[in-house]
């Protein structure tokens, strides 16, 4: 099983990194860039769990460790790797 997880900043939370990259792109000659948001992307390989279990446990991992839910939100998808 492969979990693909996106962790992004919640709306309204300052994204200094996105801001810096936005400016850099504008300066580099990409005036069309109007906004940049930077988050994390994780792939987690899981073995020996059913997809229902995986569903529940990946959500738990996100809550507990992978996302800082005070300022970040997350979403994920599960894929079979058979």
């Amino acid at each position, binding site marked *: 099983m492969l979990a693909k997880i996106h962790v992004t900043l919640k709306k309204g939370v300052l994204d*200094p990194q996105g801001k810096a990259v936005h400016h850099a792109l504008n300066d580099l000659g990409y005036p069309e860039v109007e906004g940049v948001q930077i988050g994390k992307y994780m792939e987690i390989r899981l073995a020996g769990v059913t997809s229902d279990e995986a569903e529940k446990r990946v959500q738990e991992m996100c809550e507990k460790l992978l996302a800082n839910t005070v300022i970040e939100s997350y979403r994920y998808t599960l894929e079979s790797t058979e």
Partner: protein
Amino acid sequence: MKCGVVVFPGSNCDHDSYHVLKHLYGQETHWIWHKDQVLEPFDLIVLPGGFSYGDYLRPGAIARFSPIMKAIIKYANAGGRVLGICNGFQILVESGLLPGALRRNASQKFICKYVHLRVESNQTPYTSRCEKNAVLKIPVAHADGGYFVEPETLKALEDQDRIILRYSDAAGRSDATTNPNGSVGQIAGVANAEKNVLGMMPHPERCADPLWPDRDGRYIFDSLIHSS
């Protein structure tokens, strides 16, 4: 020697390099503002440590596109001396003046402490005053100091005597246990093929003041000044 210290937004060891060159070594030293486009002639340009552009995205990634960098790349390719310390090293690899990449420390943490370095080559203007295999005690202060290169490139670096400094212990032994950050081959400093560009993670400018108990950083600056 006419020296220039580049100030990127977020540079914070710029003053330290400036202080050492100008006040401790009495060299003519100038600030270079990152937004400048033309470069006067210099004998040495220092890309100082710090967090240019907050180290956002990747350390050095944005600074590498500062207006002044075009001129510096040209200057380096024409044989001009460029010393990249810490963040400066990161900028050098991002800009392609040196091979490889600097990655997050293996510990995932920032690390600030004195380490030992073994001088692998003294055939550079930066280490000419060191014995080969001499051990220097110089501090590191970085979160992204894990040097990475592909095995083929590593081989080429070794063959061309371009690995200048390796992390070691006080006796000069260098292995995984003396590696503070996960660099391949414990590499702490590398040079370009012509040896006019050096990138190093440790901070020689932090231990060059005679007032300090440790002053091995002087070997680097002594070398530079005597080979100019």
